[in-house]
């Protein structure tokens, strides 16, 4: 938040002002905040749940919950972390009611331990190198889809939301050390998936 204030003080104070007005129930401020975060929040939810219809519903539920809880929001906290943690908790609740993939995968049990290093060899060309520029984004997105939800989440929060480890820990409600090992596992998993998918890869 401090970094955001330093990089763009006008936008930062504008957002803080809108959040303060939203807490007082100003409907224009609510519309401004929803509009400001719509792309980021929807993207986060979509990366997390993968289904557009579920992400759409969770997006709306998140704002309803935000309005319900805004009175208890501590203005000293980072609003973005708080907003994303509301969305994260709703996604978990939605998952609890469903079968299939869980946000708390069995491998999560190993999450707090040291991530084992994948045996990446230095001599061979990497999957990214084997792809043309325009193919990389789509392939990375497709491979990210194959990862467990907790790994998709940590990747989008770090790289797309540019969140610090502390902020990711706050959103996901996990210790800092777990965020680090989870991020490492997620990157290893992504690279393995890329390798398996691209022609000439180790597992292709």
């Amino acid at each position, binding site marked *: 938040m401090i970094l955001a204030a330093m990089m763009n003080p006008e936008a930062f104070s504008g957002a803080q002002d809108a959040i303060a007005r939203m807490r007082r129930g100003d409907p224009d401020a609510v519309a401004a905040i929803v509009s400001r975060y719509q792309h980021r929040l929807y*993207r986060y939810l979509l990366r997390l749940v993968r289904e557009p219809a579920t992400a*759409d519903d969770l997006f709306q539920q998140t704002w*309803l919950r935000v309005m319900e809880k805004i009175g208890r929001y501590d203005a000293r906290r980072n609003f973005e972390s708080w907003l994303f943690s509301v969305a994260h908790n709703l996604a978990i609740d939605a998952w609890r009611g469903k079968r299939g993939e869980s946000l708390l995968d069995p491998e999560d049990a190993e999450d707090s331990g040291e991530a084992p290093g994948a045996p990446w060899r230095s001599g061979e060309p990497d999957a990214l190198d084997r792809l043309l520029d325009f193919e990389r984004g789509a392939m990375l997105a497709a491979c990210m889809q194959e990862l467990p939800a907790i790994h998709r989440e940590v990747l989008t929060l770090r790289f797309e939301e540019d969140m610090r480890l502390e902020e990711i820990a706050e959103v996901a409600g996990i210790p800092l050390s777990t965020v680090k090992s989870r991020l490492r596992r997620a990157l290893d998993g992504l690279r393995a998936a890329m390798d398996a998918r691209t022609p000439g890869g180790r597992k292709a």
Partner: protein
Amino acid sequence: MSGHESCESIAGMLALAAAGVLDAQEQRRVEEHARECPACRRQLEIWSGYAQGLKQLPQPPIPAQLMERTRARLIEERAAAADRRWDELMLGALALFAWTVGLTFWFVARIVTGGELVVMGANLVRLGTWSAGSTVLVWLTAAVAAIALGRRRRELRRAL
């Protein structure tokens, strides 16, 4: 520390170095090692490619009318919350009014009847009997009135 660290001790940090999440000391260790070790330097470059690629993933389009639908749900929820608050307030006000009326009538009834009005063996103007009877009546009346008023209010809002 440095450039003499083993590749094994650095390997686990390369991906995190590219992700920009190591502390300053760890980052320096990785960079110093990578300067002198072509194999780890290559791995660091690859991980940096992944980090860069993840920052530039294709952006999903926002569903049609998502903002409008969200705003409509927020307005609807705000109106429903206002209705709930109004119903609670109205219920309280009506209960208070009914209690006041009940007590006033008790005083009047005691004066008029001289403190005794026996119906089916019970003295209705005794404080206990009067309170029990009026409590039931008060809450029933207040609840019915609040529901009726709330419904009327919602109908009017829908009609607007």
